[in-house]
């Protein structure tokens, strides 16, 4: 038994001396990088280009969303003077509003 304990300690000591590292992250998990390429053992996932990771528990991996919001106004209004007559459909129109969150750019890399 004593020999067994010494043997185990010797193996662990040998591993440390050889620089054996902790295990790699699980396959399918993600990290980010601002380097020009993902590290060895990791693959860039281009599905994320121009997109954010959004938390979900269904439809995983699907893409969606927009940066162009088409918006319609019915500019009904009323006069501002004392004769406050309603004015309906005075001015209508559609516009596209571009919006996206403030962001920083990274590559998303998935563990092989």
């Amino acid at each position, binding site marked *: 038994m004593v020999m067994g304990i010494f043997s185990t300690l010797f193996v662990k000591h040998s591993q440390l001396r050889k620089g054996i*590292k902790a295990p*790699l*992250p699980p396959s*399918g998990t*993600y*990290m*980010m*990088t601002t*380097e*020009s390429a993902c*590290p060895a*053992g990791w693959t860039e996932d*281009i*599905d*994320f*280009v*121009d*997109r*954010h*990771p*959004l*938390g979900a*528990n*269904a439809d*995983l991996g*699907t*893409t*969606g*969303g927009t*940066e162009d*919001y088409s*918006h319609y*106004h019915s500019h*009904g*209004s*009323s*006069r*501002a*003077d004392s*004769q406050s007559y*309603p*004015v*309906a*459909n*005075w*001015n*209508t*129109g*559609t516009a596209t*509003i*571009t*919006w*996206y*969150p*403030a*962001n*920083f*750019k*990274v590559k998303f890399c*998935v563990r092989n």
Partner: protein
Amino acid sequence: MTEIITFVKTGNCPDGWEEATMFLDCIPLPTNTISESGDAGGVNTAYHYHNCSWYRGQLQGADPYPPGWSYSGTKRLGSTITLDPKHVKVRFCKKIYNNDLTYPALSIMMFFDDVPYGWNLLTAFEGYYPKGASSSLGSTQAEPATSHTHSRSAGSFTCGDYSYKYIGAVSQTGNTGSGSLTAGEQFKYVKVLFCQRGNQPR
């Protein structure tokens, strides 16, 4: 002790990892304040408005410039937009981290509670959401200005008890406006510590 956060694009979290449900419908947002990590907030709606004004003009079906009518005024007009940033749906996962996984040098990962030994807090990204890109990596991009102009067309309108037709002589202004989040608000987020692995991977 700190928790490390990753995500998967298919299936469940790996063995030893727990789903981080607080990220549902949220995007992780970097913070530089450790005590703020894990805080959730933000909105997915924006109030879009115009300051619309008009002034006197000619109306078909009535004498031009009826006495006592100035046809002028202003009003703020608005409505709500539901925001839906471009995204990939993912499942966020977390686990206790004691440097028990080997990440390559310069990897960027997310953490709750603390910056682990061997990692450096990326302070330049506070308040900016991570977005995939193939160039300009590490750069930041501010939220866009959202002023815009509406197209407009002539049409019928009613004023009081009378119906008139806009024939082009009525001048209007105010077809431009802003659509933006309420000042100080951000898209739905969970604040996390974005950290970069040092040059000596462990």
